[in-house]
């Protein structure tokens, strides 16, 4: 599967190390929330980057990219009019249908908000499909919070509960400080009728699942999105093997029950 070139038509700085790129898709580009693309800045290499745009808007491909290595640094250097190679979409999706009629609880940590943003868009655009909508978003510091304008808009809605917490802040910060997991005990949802999407660093996800379980959310109602070194994206190369699963092919979104036995194991 060869990369298809797409033109960069918008570039936005989200934080000091994170940008959002919008690629023109004149023939349309359909995907499901939670899926990812392989992005190829020509001559540098490929990197798996989650799609962070609205799935209802198929004329643009949106990616939010944190600068963490050679490929993502090259993606950061792209300017309007430049082209980038795209393979995808790949991977499993957040189970939006399974969440219908239930309280949808989304817990996102750090840049993990990007892969789950399409699910947020879909849920808020089709709000009547779900009961409560709860988004708990954690970041390192206030300056690490991405999509700040949108998060503010989401917080102002009467039909959504959106809570944000940062790990550390100066005394001029007016928001909540502490790990995102501490927001779970008092979040307004019915654990017997909730489905939870969790995404962030693996340790954060483990502790988040523990808190959700403490609230009484059944294990099989929890979904997590895994991150591994994905190279081929079609389950051939084995770089992203996780136990008997391939994250690129069987994930990246997994039911927690399917992967929970691997999570505490080193070197999986």
């Amino acid at each position, binding site marked *: 599967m060869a990369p298809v070139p797409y033109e960069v038509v918008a570039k936005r700085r989200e934080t000091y*190390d994170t940008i959002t790129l919008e690629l023109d898709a004149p023939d349309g580009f359909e995907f499901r929330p939670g899926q990812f693309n392989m992005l190829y800045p020509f001559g540098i290499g490929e990197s798996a980057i989650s799609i962070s745009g609205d799935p209802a808007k198929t004329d643009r491909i949106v990616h939010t990219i*944190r600068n*963490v*290595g050679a490929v993502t640094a090259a993606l950061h250097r792209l300017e309007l009019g430049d082209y980038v190679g795209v393979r995808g979409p790949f991977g499993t999706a957040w189970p939006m249908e399974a969440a219908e009629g239930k309280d949808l609880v989304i817990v996102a*940590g*750090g*840049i993990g908000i990007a892969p789950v943003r399409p699910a947020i868009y879909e849920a808020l655009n089709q709000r009547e499909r779900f009961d409560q909508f709860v988004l708990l978003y*954690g*970041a*390192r510091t206030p300056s*690490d919070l991405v999509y700040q304008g949108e998060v503010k808009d989401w917080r102002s809605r009467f039909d959504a509960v959106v809570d944000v*917490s940062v*790990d*550390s*802040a*100066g*005394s001029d*910060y*007016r*928001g*909540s*400080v*502490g*790990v995102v*997991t*501490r927001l779970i*005990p*008092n979040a307004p949802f019915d654990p017997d009728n909730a489905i939870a999407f969790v995404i*962030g*660093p693996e*340790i*954060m996800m483990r*502790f988040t699942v523990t808190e959700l379980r403490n609230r009484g959310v059944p294990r099989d109602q929890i979904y997590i999105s895994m991150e591994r070194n994905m190279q081929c994206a079609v389950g051939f190369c084995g770089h992203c093997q996780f136990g008997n699963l391939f994250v690129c092919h069987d994930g990246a979104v997994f039911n927690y029950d399917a992967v929970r036995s691997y999570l505490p194991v080193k070197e999986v």
Partner: protein
Amino acid sequence: MSEDLDITAELGRHSFMKGVSEEVVTRIGACADGVASWGEDEMIFRSGGEATKCYLIQSGEVAIEVYSPGTGSRIVQTVSRGEVLGWSWLFEPYVWSFDARVLTPATAIVLDGEAIRHCMNDEPNLGYPMMVRFARLIVGRLQATRLQLLDLYASRN
């Protein structure tokens, strides 16, 4: 400090007391000073001060801060509705370790620390369930602090 409220009923509705028997709630209610409210930026207590009260937050957001010469104050955690502010009244030398500053107007049930200590000490049927709750609270804060120390969201490159 409001004294008109039914403090026992207020206490029974607070998350921290969930699962506690009515009898224990009534006994702890007898140790309450009432419900207090604070405005933005008011200090509830300061580091080094005598720790005599326990605060069960009902509304608003309170910052637990530490001051470092040269870098100023840092917020190490905030507490809000359903959470508990302060446990230094429980252990000697009963001195606050941090500052508590109100970020958004807050109300809290205020319990008298010394009175609760005596109750918990004299009445094991009350002391044990309360101590379990405070231990759970402290373990939760310890785990949260460990996660903060791990700096989970930091770049690894």
